[in-house]
């Protein structure tokens, strides 16, 4: 069985500071990793996935198979980045597209 751990429930940074939201996973096979974000009063939505290897809203995340991590990073946080962030894993051989989510990290960016 797979497991996703987000060690920080709350992360508070000042505007312009770098931010890193940690995500660690355990899974014996090949995983696909995602970050989902939920802004205040909005629905949960995809932020990025490791397969795409792209930067969304200035965020990047690299899959580190050696450390089994998929940390989300942004060099300069903005107030509009304040939201709830969830890391999620999907086994690549899972025909059901079932994702396992971490507990979430609330990011607060202070002015």
């Amino acid at each position, binding site marked *: 069985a797979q497991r*996703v751990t*987000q060690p920080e*429930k709350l992360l508070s940074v000042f505007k312009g500071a770098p931010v890193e939201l940690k995500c660690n996973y355990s899974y014996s096979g090949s995983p*696909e990793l995602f970050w*989902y974000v939920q802004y205040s009063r909005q*629905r*949960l*939505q*995809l932020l990025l*996935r490791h397969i795409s290897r792209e930067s969304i809203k200035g965020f990047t995340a690299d899959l580190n198979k050696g450390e089994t991590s998929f940390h989300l990073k942004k060099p300069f946080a903005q107030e509009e980045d304040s939201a709830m962030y*969830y890391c*999620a894993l*999907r086994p690549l051989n899972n*025909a*059901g*597209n*079932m*994702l*396992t*989510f*971490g*507990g*979430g990290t609330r990011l607060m960016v202070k002015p």
Partner: protein
Amino acid sequence: DVKVTQSSRYLVKRTGEKVFLECVQDMDHENMFWYRQDPGLGLRLIYFSYDVKMKEKGDIPEGYSVSREKKERFSLILESASTNQTSMYLCASSEQGLLFFGSGTQLSVL
């Protein structure tokens, strides 16, 4: 633009009531899911469905059942609501590994 619609934004029910949470998607997705979202626990999968009339238990199915009579509609049923089922319930459909979520239903069981 994918649309996943949950029929109620807020619901208040009493202990022991039978509760129906409805979800409709308009993108002809085969896979649909019900999660509950609790602070500190993240999203936990209750049930999912690969196709019409097909259903599979997720991680926390106890106290819940589901119905998928039509492809676009996936219903979550609480046979006898209890206070520990007070939560935010999220419905989602998926395609190629990407989940599309509804706005959620905040259920309070008194």
